[in-house]
């Protein structure tokens, strides 16, 4: 009887096979090129740091959930992503326990105390990075590359010196483990876009806003730079954590707006804040603080950009 084939049920009628675990696994895969290049670039210390942060992040989540008698959620890879991202945000010269401490802070205080995955108010990896940056400013901002302690390209830009954009594109420059190679990050980002994990709205708005801001105000940092100087803008785009932040951290599902309009606002906000911190701030880099501050404003952005139900709010 054909009637029996009719199933009556309430919505949702379309089910997706996508789970948090799938998405997080995709992110881990997408981060691998950057991680691999980081290990190639900075050798053994980078590998130790990445392992230390990832393992301690997963371990912290497991122990906390075990002690609190909660469902163990390390299988969804979200803790692994946090740990890996934090590792990619650490200078290779920092001691391994510093990364482990950051992972514990990020998972325990930023993520679990607020209620676990989906409840955290800011990106755990970035929260941990800022915690370490404030606590151990010296070690977190000392970069040794090829045995020589030198400034990052952004610090060079800040002091008005010339940088080699080709090196920055490939990644053979000092910096934190995962940020140096723009190409490796872009490979991961393309993978994420093709698999539909992220879309262009947030990173696109972020980068465009940032380019406009830097293009207009670039001369503040270096009077020799004109309006929309392509060389200067490229250097800023390839330097520091901008690419890593734009593609992997600003797009974090939990801490970015769910409304489309909100995502544009959020991206633009990070762009302006990054530009502000880089050009007018005390330190050369500002991506992590820009993203964290925007994370905190997300509930507000969502409230303002809530779409109106069809038929509401027309002419009276």
């Amino acid at each position, binding site marked *: 009887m054909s009637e029996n084939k009719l199933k009556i049920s309430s919505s949702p009628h379309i089910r997706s096979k996508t789970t948090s675990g799938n998405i997080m696994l995709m992110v881990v895969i997408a981060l691998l090129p950057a991680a691999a290049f980081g290990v190639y670039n900075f050798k053994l210390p980078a590998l130790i740091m990445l392992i230390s942060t990832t393992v301690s992040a997963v371990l912290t989540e497991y122990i906390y959930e075990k002690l609190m008698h909660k469902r163990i959620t390390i299988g969804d890879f979200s803790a692994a992503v946090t740990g890996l991202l934090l590792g990619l945000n650490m200078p290779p010269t920092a001691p391994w326990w*510093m990364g482990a*401490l950051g992972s514990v802070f990020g998972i325990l*205080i930023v993520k679990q105390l607020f209620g676990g995955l989906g409840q955290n108010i800011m990106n755990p990896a970035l929260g941990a990075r800022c*915690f370490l940056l*404030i*606590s*151990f*400013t*010296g*070690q977190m901002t000392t970069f040794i590359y090829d045995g020589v302690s030198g400034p990052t390209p952004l610090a060079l830009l800040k002091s008005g010196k010339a940088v080699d954009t080709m090196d920055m594109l490939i990644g053979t420059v000092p910096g934190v483990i995962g940020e140096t190679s723009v190409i490796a990050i872009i490979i991961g980002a393309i993978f994420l876009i093709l698999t539909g994990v992220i879309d262009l709205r947030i990173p696109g708005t972020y980068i465009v806003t940032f380019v406009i801001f830097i293009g207009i105000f670039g001369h503040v940092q270096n009077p020799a730079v004109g309006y929309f100087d392509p060389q200067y803008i490229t250097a800023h785009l390839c330097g520091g954590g901008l690419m890593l932040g734009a593609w992997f951290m600003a797009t974090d599902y939990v801490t970015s707006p769910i409304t489309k309009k909100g995502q544009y606002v959020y991206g633009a906000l990070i762009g302006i804040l990054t530009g502000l911190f880089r050009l007018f701030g005390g330190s050369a880099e500002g991506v992590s603080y820009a993203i964290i501050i925007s994370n905190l404003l997300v509930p507000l952005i969502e409230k303002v950009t809530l779409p109106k139900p069809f038929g509401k709010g027309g002419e009276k």
Partner: protein
Amino acid sequence: MSNCTERLYNGIIKENPTFVLMLGMCPTLAVTTSAVNGLGMGLSTTVVLVLSNMLISMLRKIIPDSLRIPAFIVVVASFVTIVQFLLQGFVPSLYASLGLYIPLIVVNCIILGRAESYASKNPVLPSIFDGIGMGLGFTAGLTCIGVVRELIGAGAVFGFQVLPIADISTGQAGYVPVTIFILAPGAFLVLAGLTALQNRFKRSAAKKGKKVPESAGCGEGCASCGNSACSGKVFPTGNEKE
């Protein structure tokens, strides 16, 4: 006299101003960068609290109800001025590190709160003990926070370097201080951590059958009380949610 010991217990443990009532958060968060600062701030506040409680309790029948807040402030401010001059004269280093927060004791909500809710309604002796209890509770809270922050943030306790600091330039191994703990965020982290810890102890004590006494001596509308731990359990306000 049992009333007096009850006041002491109430101030130090049951209604600890720092960890239970959550009063006086401004000095709590701002000056507890070291144990000495916390202790100094706590003791200065205790002195002012005891003296102002005593005087306000003495004057409670004279002060007209409509003018009580200005009258309390005048009393408190006089004592704070005395304490400030004493600190400046005898412990100038503490005076310098506490800075603006000494004159701000005038508007410390613990002092005004105790004057308003206890001293202005009760006889002199219990009011003095209420001041001592609350003051010592505040001192204990601030000192605890200060000890933890100083230990983690600088590897020291009361100025003594208990953990040898690592020296990167010479490569000497040792403790690397987590500087964030002596900065503003550390105050919030430590306060939250210690509050959670004491809640846990209270709860496990309650589970074991030791009855944690409910707030007594409030005896009035809960709206003006500010004891968030009580929230109408003792004297139902009638408007609490189901």
